[in-house]
């Protein structure tokens, strides 16, 4: 496992545990997105899913030792915020741009 990256044993095991925990977080928020009883619950679950995806991309960057996915993480953060604001405005006003 250490042929691609130069990370040591401690960092590799911490990365594996981190991947497990963050993947569990993604699955839990996905469950809330599917099950969630009301519309605000689904918006909240989608927002949590964006943030969890950012965490997953950051972990992948440390694992691959390349700063390839930071732009993707920044774009997900930006468009996730825009999407959350648009959905919340739509629920509040019935319209996004008045």
């Amino acid at each position: 496992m250490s042929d691609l990256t130069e990370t040591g044993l401690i960092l590799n095991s911490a990365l594996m545990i981190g991947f497990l925990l963050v993947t569990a977080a993604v699955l839990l928020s996905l469950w809330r997105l599917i099950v969630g009883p009301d519309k605000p619950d689904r918006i909240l679950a989608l927002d949590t899913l964006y943030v969890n995806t950012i965490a997953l991309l950051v972990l992948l960057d440390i694992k691959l030792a390349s700063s390839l996915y930071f732009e993707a993480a920044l774009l997900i953060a930006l468009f996730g915020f825009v999407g959350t604001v648009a959905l919340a405005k739509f629920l509040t006003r019935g319209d996004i741009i008045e």
Partner: protein
Amino acid sequence: MDLLMESLIAVLILIGAAFTCLGSIGLVRLRDFYERLHTPTKATTLGVGSLLIASAIFFSWTMPGISLHEVLVAVFLFITAPVSAHLMAKAALHLRERGETGLPPETTLQRHDGSGRLSEDKDGNQDGNAADSG
């Protein structure tokens, strides 16, 4: 890589992943929307912030120069998380006043009636509200 820096990065990764997972567990386990709003907007943001600090330390240690991409993502997340939480809470309150969603259970009804508008719906709740204000 130095053992001390590696352990520091590993501890930061473990803290961040644990807080991220706790945020999503709270999103699943808590009872109604206003309680569920707490964990993703606080615990998950803290967890991702810790992961980003770990990543910044890692790339500043391994690559030449100081890596500042992660600070950008962290600052953006820390600014936008309270704003989106506020907007979602406002949307949920609007939906509840219009009666499009079911009323939350009794405990949260007593906890969230600062405006006093909801206490007209229930007779039993009005007495408690008057006793609180008077």
